């Protein structure tokens, strides 16, 4: 019953998972001090998968009895995940040596997590969504606790796991309710039942709300955000960087796919909930970030706030006229935010000398003077986070705000605007400490990490001059809607 086209539709996912398995075995023969080879092999595997994703993009296929879908949206997301993975490998290579947690499984687990995310972007069946969620989460629980001997890491891992298991439980509950409301599990079937009007609307709605809880946890939307700072702070920094970009993107991939395909008919009921969630996320994330002097925690809150901006555009998911813009704006923002975020976290990696010794603002003092390029790069990232013009962050925010205004959520846009002002303060504070406070920092800069910083900074600046390139790609990556 399995056709070649089915295999073709999830080939990149299988490549990543299969490669990870092979790597697990191969790694046994790679001596401890040569783990760089494992990193390289992992990166090659991701690159090969990337090649296949690019080659198969542009097709639209429903595979495996409509359990998975390959479309522009999934291809766009998969490119994002794979590139994030490669960046994370580059960031981790030196870091895990320095922190003395140099084990090959690190890369293997990361690849499995990426496979889970890729599957998430393709899932077209609620059971697949649940599986993909577990697939991407479990490796992350391990990665978070990868600095096994460190209290912070262990603690973060445990918290993340306990809350994560709790939250994925809600996805399962939601799936059960939607199944009993419609008698279907795959999106095609559910959508058909909903269109026919024979779904039980109460159960369907509660099911949707429960799914929202589960996904809200993954994207760290308020009030499901609390794990974020603890986990971001405790996890090894490359893992944090990976989480802040890829996991968030995967969460949004699931949210968009499920909500846009299954729940447009519920938008009347879900929109107020999303509105409140978006507003709270922007407000809480930005305001709490003001009170942080630990960079990792500050970035964690900023990650929450950015999820809020995306949610702001997402509120309009049921509005057929702007939904295309919502998707495009979200994808664009994920790219802009991803570039910026990786850059900022890479700088944190450079500055972090000892595991778990949180980096405080004071540790940044003098970097602008002694390492001007790092300082300038950080300036670029912070401006981009704050959404200042001539950075990708500005365009990202602009598209999101525009979508919100188009859909008529002007109140929400104003909340977003005001919180952006607050955010400028804590982002620029970083710059002030770097450039305006005296200090004698001593940094060891790994070439791979500086490559990430340099490329990210240039991309944030240069792509902002030609934002249409990414926007065009994002607009083409519209989902296959039922």
């Amino acid at each position, binding site marked *: 019953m399995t056709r070649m086209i089915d295999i073709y539709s999830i080939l990149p996912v299988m490549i990543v998972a299969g490669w990870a398995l092979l790597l697990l075995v191969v790694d046994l023969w790679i001596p401890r001090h040569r783990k760089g080879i494992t990193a390289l092999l992992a990166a090659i595997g991701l690159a090969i998968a990337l090649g296949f994703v690019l080659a198969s993009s542009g097709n639209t296929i429903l595979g495996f009895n409509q359990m998975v879908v390959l479309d522009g949206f999934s291809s766009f997301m998969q490119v994002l995940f794979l590139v994030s993975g490669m960046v994370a490998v580059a960031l981790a290579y030196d870091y895990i040596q320095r922190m003395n947690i140099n084990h090959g499984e690190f890369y293997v687990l990361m690849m499995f997590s990426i496979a889970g995310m890729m599957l998430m972007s393709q899932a077209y069946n609620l059971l697949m969504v649940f599986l993909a969620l*577990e697939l991407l989460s479990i490796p992350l629980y391990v990665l978070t606790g990868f600095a096994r001997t460190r209290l912070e890491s262990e*603690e973060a891992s445990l918290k993340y796991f306990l809350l994560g298991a709790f939250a994925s*439980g809600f996805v399962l509950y939601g799936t059960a309710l939607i199944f009993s409301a419609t008698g279907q599990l795959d999106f095609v079937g559910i959508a058909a039942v909903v269109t026919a009007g024979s779904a039980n609307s109460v159960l369907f709605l509660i099911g949707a709300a429960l799914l929202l809880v589960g996904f809200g946890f993954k994207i760290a939307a308020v009030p499901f955000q609390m794990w974020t700072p*603890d986990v971001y702070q405790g996890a090894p920094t490359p893992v944090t960087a990976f989480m802040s970009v890829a996991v968030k993107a995967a969460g949004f991939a699931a949210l968009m796919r499920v909500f846009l395909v299954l729940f447009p008919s519920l938008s009347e009921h879900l929109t107020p909930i999303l509105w409140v969630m978006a507003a709270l996320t922007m407000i809480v994330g930005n305001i709490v970030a003001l*009170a942080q002097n630990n960079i990792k925690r500050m970035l964690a809150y900023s990650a929450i706030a950015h999820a809020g901006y995306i949610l702001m555009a997402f509120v309009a998911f049921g509005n057929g006229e702007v939904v295309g813009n919502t998707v495009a704006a979200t994808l664009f923002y994920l790219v802009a935010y991803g570039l910026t975020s990786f850059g900022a976290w890479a700088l944190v990696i450079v500055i972090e000398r000892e595991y778990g010794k949180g980096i405080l603002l004071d540790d940044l003092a003098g970097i602008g003077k002694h390492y001007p390029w790092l300082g300038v790069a950080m300036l670029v990232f912070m401006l981009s986070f704050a959404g200042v013009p001539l950075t990708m962050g500005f365009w990202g925010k602009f598209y999101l705000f525009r979508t919100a205004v188009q859909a008529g959520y002007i109140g929400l846009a104003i909340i977003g605007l005001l919180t952006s002002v607050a955010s400028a303060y804590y982002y620029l504070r970083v710059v002030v400490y770097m450039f305006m406070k005296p200090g004698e920092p001593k940094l060891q800069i790994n070439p791979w990490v500086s490559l990430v910083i340099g490329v990210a900074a240039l991309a944030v600046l240069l792509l902002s001059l030609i934002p249409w390139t990414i926007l065009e790609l994002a607009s083409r990556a519209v989902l296959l809607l039922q």
Partner: protein
Amino acid sequence: MLFLMAIAAGVLFAAGIFMILRRSMVKVLVGILLLGYAANLLLFNAAPLIRGAPPLIDPVIGVPTVYADPVPQALILTAIVISFGVTAFAVVLIRRAYAVTGTGDLDNMHCTDIPCESEEILSDLEDEIL
């Protein structure tokens, strides 16, 4: 029967939540297991409960006229297996955490949170802008 089943699931869920709110790591894990049981019951209930009619195809008669819905069963199978994997992983994780932190008390685990310092941070930050 439905009603009893619902009560059972409700009690399991409530007990699960109560356990998750304890301080002991192991108890929290037990709570998650209880929630898993509740989830299985919920899934099982998603199709009508039918006694003594498993979804089997009789070699002679063919498809029976009355049968239990096989789809939720398949779903629960997946859920059970995954929750077992997760449990095994959790046990090891807790064991590890205990070995590293020397405590099974979650209340001793908030060193990543620094709200206690926030007064001091605030006064620093105020100096900066005013």
